[in-house]
């Protein structure tokens, strides 16, 4: 049997070679970070880092990484490093190694050597298959290090020699002109090389073989997870940092500074951005009407979708026989759930607007969002009810309690946590939707505080059908996501209304984020709480 080496049950202490491999992994991490920094222009390609020109530094590090990786492979093959390699690096690794060489071969043949498209294809095939063979045929330790190490060294050399340096440019020569610049290529090439280098080094660290592959894969998977978290963190932090100044403009804290609530009680804070609209005489402008609009939208959508969705879920789980009908409803709800929001907008536009006074209105927006929310409520309520153990129903039935009584007194209370969580998460989603309300509700861009929608105060009774009317519901108003969209499209010209338009826009983005994410936070928190409660009792 090929490549069998009896591995040890207990591994010895960390060896020098392991330390070296670990350092190599660290080196690629540094390169990765540098590449990301360069990509976002945190590190200048033309400048210097630690006294060395950036391009030179990157090139040097890449070469060092490449040499180290090759050294491991060769050292292991020659028996200087104690490893446990398989007979071959495997198909995945071979394809992985072939791809960059394919790109390099194609690029060099067609552009650098000027052989044109046909030559490029030929070059790509030659370089790619060479890398493939070089990875697949030799023993794993060589196969998974040498082609990749060579790649790193080559890229490093190209940077070091200045072949691709600041100012390098490759005009793609397309009808609509576009070029690949060094500012783009250098970080990206470094990034990709660092990933490959890190992968190979991690394999070496794991002494190749099953464990080596495990290590290699884990490095990539962890990196991916970290990047996603990092991305999330940066995204939110960015919006917060940009938006906070606008949000905090003119904030005052102290007794009696805030607006009055319920006639007499005065809020001890005054935050103009969330307590004002836009008006000429305001000291600071704000988005209160949009916030209130969002709240009413959500309220309306919830009032529409929750009873309907929960009711339908009850019917489907408790009354309907599993069969064609339930399946059809399932397909329909899942279809509804994935229907693009803009299509809901179109539907609202075509169906609701003509029925609500032929104009965009809060009510049309509520219902449109309600339609969107409905499938989610239905799906989550259904899941929650299905996860109520049948034992409860059996127990109730065995006591001679009728079906609806059972549903009401046992199933619904037990399913409540799931339903509530689902509704909150769904609300978070619709609260941030722009597309549907764009077509059904959107009102002004800069709405004065006095025009904040007042649904409750808007009800009127009339003598003719439908006997009750509410002009507030039938008027367009603003909502936070729409407000942000309107601010984007309104571009620079809002100076007349707002003194610091950019700050105002970021603050709007931030407040939108806060509103939506608090729904999510509450939803996630609720789920966590309910779960813990269930687990503990």
């Amino acid at each position, binding site marked *: 049997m090929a490549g069998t080496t009896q591995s040890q049950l207990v591994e010895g202490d960390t060896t020098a070679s392991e330390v070296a491999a670990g350092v190599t992994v660290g080196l690629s991490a540094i390169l990765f970070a540098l590449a990301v920094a360069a990509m976002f222009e945190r590190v200048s390609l033309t400048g210097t880092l630690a006294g060395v020109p950036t391009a030179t530094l990157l090139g040097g590090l890449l070469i060092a990484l490449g040499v180290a990786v090759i050294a491991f492979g060769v050292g292991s093959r020659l028996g200087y490093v104690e490893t446990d390699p398989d007979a071959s690096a495997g198909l995945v690794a071979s394809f992985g190694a072939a791809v960059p060489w394919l790109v390099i071969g194609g690029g060099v043949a067609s552009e650098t050597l000027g052989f044109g498209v046909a030559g490029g294809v030929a070059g790509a095939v030659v370089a790619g298959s060479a890398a493939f063979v070089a990875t697949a045929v030799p023993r794993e330790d060589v196969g998974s290090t040498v082609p990749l190490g060579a790649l790193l060294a080559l890229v490093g050399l190209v940077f070091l020699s200045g072949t691709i340096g600041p100012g390098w440019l490759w005009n793609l020569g397309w009808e609509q002109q576009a070029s690949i610049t060094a500012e783009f290529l250098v970080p990206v090439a470094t990034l990709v090389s660092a990933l490959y280098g890190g992968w190979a080094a991690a394999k070496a660290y794991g002494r190749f073989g099953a464990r080596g592959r495990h290590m290699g894969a884990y490095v990539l998977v962890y990196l991916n997870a970290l990047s996603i978290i990092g991305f999330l963190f940066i995204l939110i932090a960015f919006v917060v940092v940009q938006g906070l100044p606008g949000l905090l403009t003119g904030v005052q804290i102290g007794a009696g500074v805030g607006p009055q609530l319920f006639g007499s009680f005065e809020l001890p804070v005054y935050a103009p951005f969330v307590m004002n609209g836009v008006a*000429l005489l305001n000291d600071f402008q704000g988005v209160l009407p949009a916030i209130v609009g969002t709240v009413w939208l959500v309220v309306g959508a919830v009032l529409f979708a929750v009873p309907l969705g929960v009711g339908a879920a009850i019917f489907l789980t408790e009354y309907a026989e599993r069969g064609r009908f339930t399946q059809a409803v399932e397909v329909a709800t899942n279809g509804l759930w994935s229907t693009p929001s803009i299509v809901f907008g179109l539907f609202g536009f075509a169906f609701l607007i003509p029925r609500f006074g032929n104009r965009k209105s809060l009510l049309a927006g509520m219902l449109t969002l309600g339609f969107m929310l409905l499938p989610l409520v239905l799906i989550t309520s259904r899941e929650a009810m299905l996860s109520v153990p049948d034992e409860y129903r059996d127990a109730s039935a065995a006591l001679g309690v009728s079906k609806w009584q059972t549903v009401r007194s046992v199933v619904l209370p037990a399913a409540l946590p799931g339903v509530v969580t689902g509704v909150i998460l769904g609300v978070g989603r619709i609260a941030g939707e722009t597309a549907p309300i764009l077509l059904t509700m959107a009102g002004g861009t800069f709405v004065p505080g006095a*025009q904040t929608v007042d649904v409750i105060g808007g009800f009127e009774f009339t003598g003719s059908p439908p006997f009750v*009317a509410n002009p507030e519901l039938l008027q367009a108003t603003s909502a936070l996501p729409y407000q942000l969209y309107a601010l984007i*499209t309104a*571009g620079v010209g809002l100076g007349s209304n707002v003194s610091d338009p950019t700050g105002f826009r970021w603050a709007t983005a931030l407040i939108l984020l806060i509103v939506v994410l608090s729904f999510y936070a509450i939803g996630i928190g609720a789920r966590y709480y309910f779960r813990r409660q269930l687990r503990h009792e």
Partner: protein
Amino acid sequence: GGQSGGDGGDGGDGGSDPTATEAESDMGDEPTETESSDDGGDGPNTSLLNAEGSSTVYPISNTGSSYWNSNAPPSDGEYWGSNSESTVPGWSQLGEPDMLLADYFAQKFGFEPTEQRSSPPFPTTVGLSHSGTGCEAVTEGLVDIGNSSGPITAELDWSDEKAQNTVIDNVVGRDGQPVVVSSDVVDAGVTELTGEEVRGIYQDEITNWSEIDGIDYDQEIYAVGRAEGSGTDTSFRLNMLGGADAAMPGVDTRFGQNQQVAQAVSQNEGAIAYMALAFTSETVVPVGIDFEGTLYEPDRDAENTIFDSDYPLNRDLHMYTLIEDDNPNGGGYDAREAAFINMFLNDFGQTVFVEGNNYIPLPTSDLETMKEKVSALATEDLIMP
């Protein structure tokens, strides 16, 4: 116990209460003209006045609206009236009325003054989109005022006669639609273009700045356009390209509003755009245009200037109102519309709202004509303020 429901809270169990579900639907048939039909009893209708449409007219109409909503007292000085530090322009021409801003203009049309800051006799709001939308909305009765920077005849493809019978054309100012370029283009020496060249650029015949005579700037042209259906686009096709439905294959990007155009021009290299005067800046630079030998310069004081009505791209800015049976005398205004529009038809309005936004004020004769139209509803003589 018989058949009692059992434990307490059953009656109102949320899960199955259908009233909320359907309650909304019964309002579907609300008469559309809530505002205009309410005015049965005492005094004119004071519901929200809404305007919608052109992003070109938006600055005028929105500034007007925010002044109106502020209902500033005459002691303000900055926005209305006069104090020791400043006096609002046009104040003396109005006869220095001792009333709040909106109160003053509204009472001329029979509204009760509120005598309260930030609380006008009726509120106003202005939506931002483009001319086509505004014209559409006002004809369908969705809004009270439809803002448009192109004539409604071109926007909706109407005959003059239909336009006259359907809407009142309130012209509140003028725009000398400039052609603008990004600052790098100016730096490369482009300060004027011929009409031919502009046409060539937008019809995809010229794609690089180096193709312009005497310019040595190898940069692809980024031709920015406005949304199809916007007044600016329509006027540009009409006045520059030779017809409201002229083709524009050269456009690289279209934006919904003037504001976005300005932003795109300032952010990108090699950009050219057509827009409204209100949106030019140091990074969005208007260039002179040479029409058949006459160079119109972006300078108020030049001999031939784009601020002049001779400039082929010069255009009127409209606030259309719908002729309706519900209106007094079946005319083109209700009291709110007339009162609001009247605010723009005097020195104060022209200076603050039109010139203040870098547009061109109307000549006095035009103002008089417009005033005659609104005066049908006025409770006092408008011509002598």
